[in-house]
C-alpha cells in the first residue's frame, strides 16, 4: 500500500481535507466546532500552560496503516534534520514548565539522528518524562533496531505503542498483514528488558483505536480486558491502555468517505460532544513541532498544515513563549474527535 501522497490522492492535500470537513459537515456551519465552543464559552480556545512538547521527527514509517493520520509510510521521505533537532533541544532546555517530551512520527526510530536526539534530551533534562511512540514492528524490521528496547531502557524512555486489538484479525486489518504477530514478538522483547513489568519503573503503554467508524470503548474496561487476554494468551505485560478516537483526517478520512461512513461518523462525534472533554483537549498544554521546525497546536493540525496562530512566530527559529501562550488555538471540525465521550488525546481518554 502506498501513502495518499504517493498515490497523488486528492486527500493528501490539506486544503481538500479542510474543504470536506467544512462543506460536508452535518448540520452545516451552525453546527461547526467553533459554534459548539461558543455555546460553552470556550471560544476562542486558549492554552492553559505549556507542559508537553511533541516532536514529529518525520513521516517515514515501515508500516502503512489504513487509519494513519500522518499518511506515513516507506515512501515518505520528510524527516527532521539534526539542526532542527538542535532547535528543539534549546526549547526543551529553556522551557522549565515542560514536563514531557513526546517523540512521534512515522516511525521515529527510522530517523538517522533519533538516538542522538533522545540521548541529548536525557542529558539536558534528566528528570523529564520522555515518550517515544514506537510502532513495535520497527524493532524487528532490521537487525540494527533489535537493541531498541535496551536503548529505551538506558535512556529512561516511556514507550507508547499501538495495538488495536488482542486478536490478529483486527490488528492486521488496520495495520497490515502479519503486524499482530510481529507486534507480540516486539512486546515480548520489551517485557524481557523489564518494560511493562511491575516494579521495574519502565513504562510500556498501549494505544487502542477503533478499527473502523465507531468510537472507542471505556478505557478502564478495555484495559482490563487487554491485560487479561494478552497475559492469558501470549504472556505479554503492559502498564496502561490509552483509548484514542480516530480523527477524521488523512487516511482515516479517506476510509470514512470511501466506505460511506463519513456523515454517520461525524454525526456520532457531534452527538457525543462533551463540554468537559472540550475543556481538557490536549492542544491547551501542548506544542507540536513538525519535521521542518514549524509549530502547531497538535499533531492533527500539523497534518492539516494549520500552523499556530501566534502573530510573532510559527517556527522554532523564533520561539516566543509569551506569544505562544496567548495564541488562539486553531480549530476545525476534525476537533470533534477530541471532544467525544470521555475525550481523546495522545495520552488516551481525558476524563
Amino acid at each position, binding site marked *: 500500500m502506498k501513502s495518499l501522497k504517493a498515490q497523488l490522492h486528492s486527500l493528501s492535500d490539506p486544503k481538500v481535507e479542510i474543504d470536506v470537513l467544512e462543506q460536508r459537515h452535518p448540520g452545516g456551519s451552525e453546527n461547526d466546532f467553533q459554534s459548539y465552543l461558543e455555546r460553552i464559552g470556550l471560544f476562542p480556545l486558549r492554552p492553559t500552560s505549556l507542559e508537553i512538547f511533541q516532536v514529529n521527527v518525520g513521516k517515514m514509517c515501515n508500516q502503512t496503516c489504513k487509519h494513519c493520520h500522518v499518511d506515513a509510510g516507506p515512501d515518505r521521505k520528510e524527516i527532521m534534520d539534526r539542526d532542527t533537532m538542535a532547535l528543539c533541544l534549546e526549547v526543551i532546555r529553556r522551557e522549565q514548565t515542560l514536563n514531557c517530551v513526546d517523540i512521534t512520527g512515522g516511525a521515529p526510530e527510522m530517523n538517522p539522528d533519533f538516538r542522538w536526539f533522545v540521548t541529548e534530551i536525557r542529558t539536558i533534562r534528566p528528570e523529564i518524562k520522555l515518550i517515544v511512540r514506537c510502532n513495535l514492528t520497527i524493532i524487528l524490521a532490521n537487525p540494527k533496531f533489535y537493541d531498541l528496547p535496551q536503548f529505551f531502557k538506558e535512556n529512561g524512555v516511556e514507550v507508547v505503542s499501538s495495538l488495536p486489538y488482542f486478536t490478529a484479525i483486527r490488528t492486521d486489518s488496520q495495520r497490515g498483514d502479519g503486524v499482530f504477530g510481529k507486534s507480540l514478538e516486539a512486546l515480548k522483547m520489551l517485557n524481557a528488558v523489564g518494560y511493562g513489568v511491575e516494579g521495574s519503573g519502565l513504562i510500556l503503554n498501549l494505544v487502542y483505536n477503533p478499527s*473502523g467508524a*465507531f468510537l*472507542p*470503548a471505556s478505557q478502564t*474496561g478495555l484495559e482490563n480486558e487487554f491485560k487479561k487476554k494478552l497475559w492469558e494468551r501470549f504472556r505479554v505485560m503492559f502498564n496502561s491502555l490509552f483509548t484514542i478516537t480516530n480523527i477524521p483526517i488523512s487516511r482515516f478520512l479517506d476510509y470514512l468517505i470511501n466506505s460511506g461512513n463519513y456523515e454517520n461518523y461525524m454525526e456520532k462525534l457531534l452527538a457525543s460532544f462533551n463540554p468537559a472533554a472540550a475543556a481538557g483537549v490536549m492542544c491547551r498544554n501542548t506544542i507540536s513541532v513538525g519535521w521542518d521546525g514549524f509549530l502547531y497546536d497538535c499533531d492533527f493540525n500539523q497534518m492539516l498544515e494549520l500552523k499556530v496562530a501566534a502573530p510573532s512566530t510559527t517556527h522554532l527559529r523564533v520561539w516566543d513563549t509569551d506569544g505562544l501562550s496567548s495564541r488562539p488555538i486553531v480549530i476545525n471540525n476534525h476537533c470533534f474527535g477530541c471532544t467525544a465521550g470521555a475525550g481523546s488525546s495522545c495520552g488516551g481518554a481525558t476524563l
Partner: protein
Amino acid sequence: MKTYYNPEDLKKFGTIGELQKSMADKFFAYYSEVFAEGALTAREKSLIALAVAHALQCPYCIDAYTTDTLEKGCDEEQMMEAVHVAAAIRGGASLVHSTQMMSKIKEISM
C-alpha cells in the same frame, strides 16, 4: 426504491413522542435505566441486546447494537457467539416443542 425499512428512520426513533409524549418519555427513561451499568455491566447488556435483536430480527436494533457492542469493546468472536446463543434458544424452543408432538403421536397411535 421504496422499502419498508430505511436506515434513516432509526435516527428518528426519538421523535415517536410527537404523537404520544408521556408514554414515549417514560419508555425512553426506562430504556436508558435498563441499559445503564448495574448488576450487569453495560457491555453485557449490550451483548444481550444484540442477541435479542437477532432473535427478533429487527434491522434497526441489529444496526444499533452492532455499533454499540463494538463501542463497548466487544469483538467479532464475542458478538457472533451472542448471536449463536439467540439461534440456539430459538432452535431449542422449536425443538423442545417436539416433545408435545411426540406425546400427541403416542396419544393417538396404536
